[in-house]
């Protein structure tokens, strides 16, 4: 297209993706660090209270204000920016063209960063919408829908429209569909902020949004990234296009419907709960389709799991989806939900999805794309492996301690144990969770250092030392 050259204005292809990947990794470090801080405040509630130097910051670092900060930064900072970074990198690659506008992309990412700084400050100053996972106040909701999601969508859609390929690869279907679905999901979540929707309807919309930020954005885009990274690195073609179709259409059709399963204990009508519960089990169809497709794509190349850190992360994330989705599909049925609802089990499950599944795949894509974008080898393989093991061990320990604490809470709830005794019994697990959390946080700061060094001091890739498929190993 003739407009393609006009929109470059001195920016090299890949500039927007570079800005996006680095912003995402910085937010990952900040977001996980705040998560660690909130866990400390559960383990040692008086931490920082009454400390003279804190002054007015005591209120800003109170548990109830930092927790939404952690969630907002991790979901809308790290995960979502890394998704858009992947879109800015993979969409042009798969459409055999340039990104529609690098300039718009760079603007988009910096508007996004500014939005997160403003949003973060507003949250710790106490401006909270009171709706979980959708805690930004309504002026910021409008900003997210327009300056952040709107601009990113325009860029990705225009890139697809000017493609120079016959077909559209599965990754790009997911990118386009997920952008539309996230826009709708975020809008539904913002409806109670913008319009006078109250009562159970408000609660229902809030939880529909909370469910679908995962179901219609994080899950499909993580999968889309795996659909690109895993065949690309192994050099194998995607095992089955048809299974990909099954995955895509089942996500669109019924990944959004189980929103009400977050309100199983609330006085919603029974038909809504039953409908949500049954369609919640059906989530297994897209997730198993995805996992099958990925695992069969790696056939004959499993040796690369230990030699290529990008594949190591992406495949670990994909395999984590097996226990994650079985847990997710069955824990929301009434038979199990009444037992574990509202306990640390759920917190463990949420981290399984966001950290175990999604973050691992995105980290894999980040290693791959940063090496490609800067045309350099990864600065340090040993730091990358250290990052892998710190994150993996940290996450597994984190999940295990929280799940055990959740089971203690659940049995306490069933046997009408005095509540404070349950709090007391789970306290050691909260300390354990902080330790494993620290392990994860350390890994992410190492990741940031390694990525920074790769961009500035990694060994440049020339024709001589370039391997056939990827830039390192």
């Amino acid at each position, binding site marked *: 297209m003739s407009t393609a050259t006009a929109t470059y204005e001195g920016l090299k292809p890949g500039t927007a993706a570079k800005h996006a990947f680095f912003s995402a990794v910085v937010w990952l470090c900040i977001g996980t660090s705040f998560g660690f801080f909130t866990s400390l405040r*559960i383990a040692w509630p*008086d931490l920082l209270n009454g400390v003279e130097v804190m002054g007015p910051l005591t209120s800003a670092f*109170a548990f109830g204000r930092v927790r939404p900060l952690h969630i907002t930064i991790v979901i809308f900072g790290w995960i979502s920016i890394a998704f858009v970074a992947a879109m800015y990198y993979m969409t042009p690659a798969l459409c055999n063209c340039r990104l529609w506008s690098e300039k718009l992309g760079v603007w988009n990412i910096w508007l996004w960063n500014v939005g997160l700084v403003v949003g973060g400050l507003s949250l710790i100053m106490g*401006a*909270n919408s009171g709706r979980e996972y959708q805690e930004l106040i309504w002026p910021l909701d409008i900003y997210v829908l327009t300056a952040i999601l709107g601009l990113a969508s325009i860029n990705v859609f225009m890139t697809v429209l000017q493609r120079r390929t016959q077909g559209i690869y599965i990754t790009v279907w997911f990118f386009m569909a997920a952008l539309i679905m996230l826009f709708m999901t975020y809008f539904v979540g913002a409806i109670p902020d913008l319009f006078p929707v109250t009562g159970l309807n408000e609660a229902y919309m809030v939880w529909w949004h909370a469910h679908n930020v995962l179901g219609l954005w994080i899950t499909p885009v993580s999968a889309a990234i795996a659909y690109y990274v895993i065949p690309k690195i192994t050099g194998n073609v995607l095992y089955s296009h048809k299974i990909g179709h099954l995955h895509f259409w089942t996500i669109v059709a019924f990944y959004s419907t189980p*929103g009400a399963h977050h309100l199983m204990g609330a006085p919603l009508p029974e038909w*809504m709960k039953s409908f949500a519960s049954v369609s919640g089990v059906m989530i297994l169809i897209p997730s198993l389709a995805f996992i099958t497709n990925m695992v069969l794509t790696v056939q004959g190349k499993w040796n690369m799991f230990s030699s290529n850190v990008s594949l190591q992360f992406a495949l670990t994330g994909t395999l984590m989806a097996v226990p994650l989705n079985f847990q997710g599909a069955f824990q929301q049925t009434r038979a199990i939900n*009444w037992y574990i609802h*509202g306990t640390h089990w759920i917190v463990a499950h949420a981290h399984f999805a966001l950290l175990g599944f999604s973050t691992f795949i995105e980290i894999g894509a980040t290693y791959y794309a940063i090496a490609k974008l800067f045309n350099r080898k990864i600065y340090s393989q040993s730091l990358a492996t250290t990052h892998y093991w710190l994150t993996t061990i940290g996450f597994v320990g984190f999940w295990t301690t929280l799940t055990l604490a959740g089971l203690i809470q659940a049995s306490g709830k069933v046997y009408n144990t005095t509540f404070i005794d349950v709090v007391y019994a789970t306290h050691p697990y909260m300390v354990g969770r902080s330790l494993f959390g620290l392990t994860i946080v350390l890994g992410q700061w190492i990741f940031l250092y390694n990525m920074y060094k790769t961009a500035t001091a990694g060994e440049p890739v020339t024709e001589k030392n370039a391997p056939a498929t990827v830039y390192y190993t």
Partner: protein
Amino acid sequence: MGGYKEYKIGVIMFLVVFAASMFMTIGLGGVYLAKIPATQLALSKQVHYGSSAWSIKDPLMKGLNQPMVTKRGKSFNDPVGVGKKIFIREGCWHCHTLLPEQSMDWEYFGAPPLAGDFVGESPTVIGSDRKAPDLMHIGSRMPSVAWHLQHHKDPRSVQNKSIMQSFDFLDKKELKALAKYMVSLK
């Protein structure tokens, strides 16, 4: 998109399937929930809380735009409504639920709410993660304002195993409003 017929069909199918899925959940569910009539409790909450949501008129959520009450000739914001706003601002609902569950909480935390009890309330902050006791009927279990004041200032002075942080950074008026809100939750 000239000539790529299969993508036109795909795009239309995507929109139809996604719209149908949203209609079934948000559409049908929303219409049903919007028709639920308000109970007496919901009406009383509407009177005390007003709108608890963030507003431009009250950017730091200090309770400046809550309903006014008059006592001994003085007019001020209803402390119950101000307390709820502080409950939202300080993120109390990240640990305390406002929802005894239908399945098992009857004996311990009291009767679960009726669907109509929430009409007119926004945000409902019913919570999801119960690291701390449910507060829907806290005013019946702990009817003393003085106890709540002490508990919020120094939780471990009244419950030595508590893992709640101290809220001594709130000013006197805010602590009092929060305690009054707690006591109002019968």
